[in-house]
């Protein structure tokens, strides 16, 4: 359950991070690959070495989708419709990986925002990313 203030905070944070979407996205992915090697199996078709163009462009895509969803959280199911279909029928990523990625995104935010990543911001962001992942997995079965 997200309060109005939390939704504002989430939208504000992602608004600020959109210009560095590539950096944030790539870092979160790299953190996930380092801590959960199984997640790399979904990327055998891409070059996921640090600073690779594939990694940065993929990271950017993910962050921009998260930022877009943050603009109107009540509409997540609508905003994510096409991505839901993509993940369910084509990508078929085991949803535990969404949890791993979300955690690594939180770590990335902490490393970048330092003390600005307050417990309140952390709680709001964790809730948002969990909701995002849940909506993304809705069409899986």
């Amino acid at each position: 359950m997200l309060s109005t203030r939390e939704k504002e905070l989430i939208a504000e944070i992602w608004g600020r991070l959109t210009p560095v979407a590539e950096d944030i996205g790539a870092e979160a992915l790299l953190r996930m690959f380092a801590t959960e090697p199984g997640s790399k199996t979904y990327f055998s078709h891409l070059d996921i070495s640090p600073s690779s163009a594939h990694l940065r462009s993929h990271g950017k895509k993910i962050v921009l989708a998260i930022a877009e969803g943050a603009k109107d959280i009540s509409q997540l199911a609508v905003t994510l419709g096409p991505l839901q279909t993509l993940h369910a029928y084509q990508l078929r990523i085991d949803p535990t990986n969404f949890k791993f990625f979300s955690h690594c995104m939180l770590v990335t935010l902490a490393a970048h925002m330092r003390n600005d990543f307050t417990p309140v911001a952390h709680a709001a962001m964790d809730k948002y990313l969990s909701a995002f992942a849940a909506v993304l997995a809705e069409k899986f079965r």
Partner: protein
Amino acid sequence: MVEWTDFERATIVDIFSKMQYEVVGPAALARCLIVYPWTQRYFGNFGNLYNAAAISGNPMVAKHGTTILHGLDRAVKNMDDIKSTYAELSVLHSEKLHVDPDNFKLLSDCLTIVVAAQLGKEFTGKVQAAFQKFLAVVVSSLGRQYH
């Protein structure tokens, strides 16, 4: 027995040697109580846990957070046998405190984030992996004596 690479050992020792236990411990426990409010169930006698500000300023939370981190120290000094280092504590958490072991993972995630915020860029993916592996062993050992 857990196998540690030289990098992992050095990383864990390094992180803990530079850590301010009285800052990181309280911050991690407070964060856990704020981000995962149901964990407050174990702290009924800690007084005011009504909101984030109250939790962050609560002296009992601070004291306990510091205690927890000093407890982690024992694992840092005994990385080759964390399981037996925590056998007693595991029994305590199970038989006396009745803590659901899933909570250990929640606290360890919060600790990771506090350390990430402290170290910034230095907390690379490789360092994070070593830190999380260490905490996973701790968490597993603490849950080991439950039955």
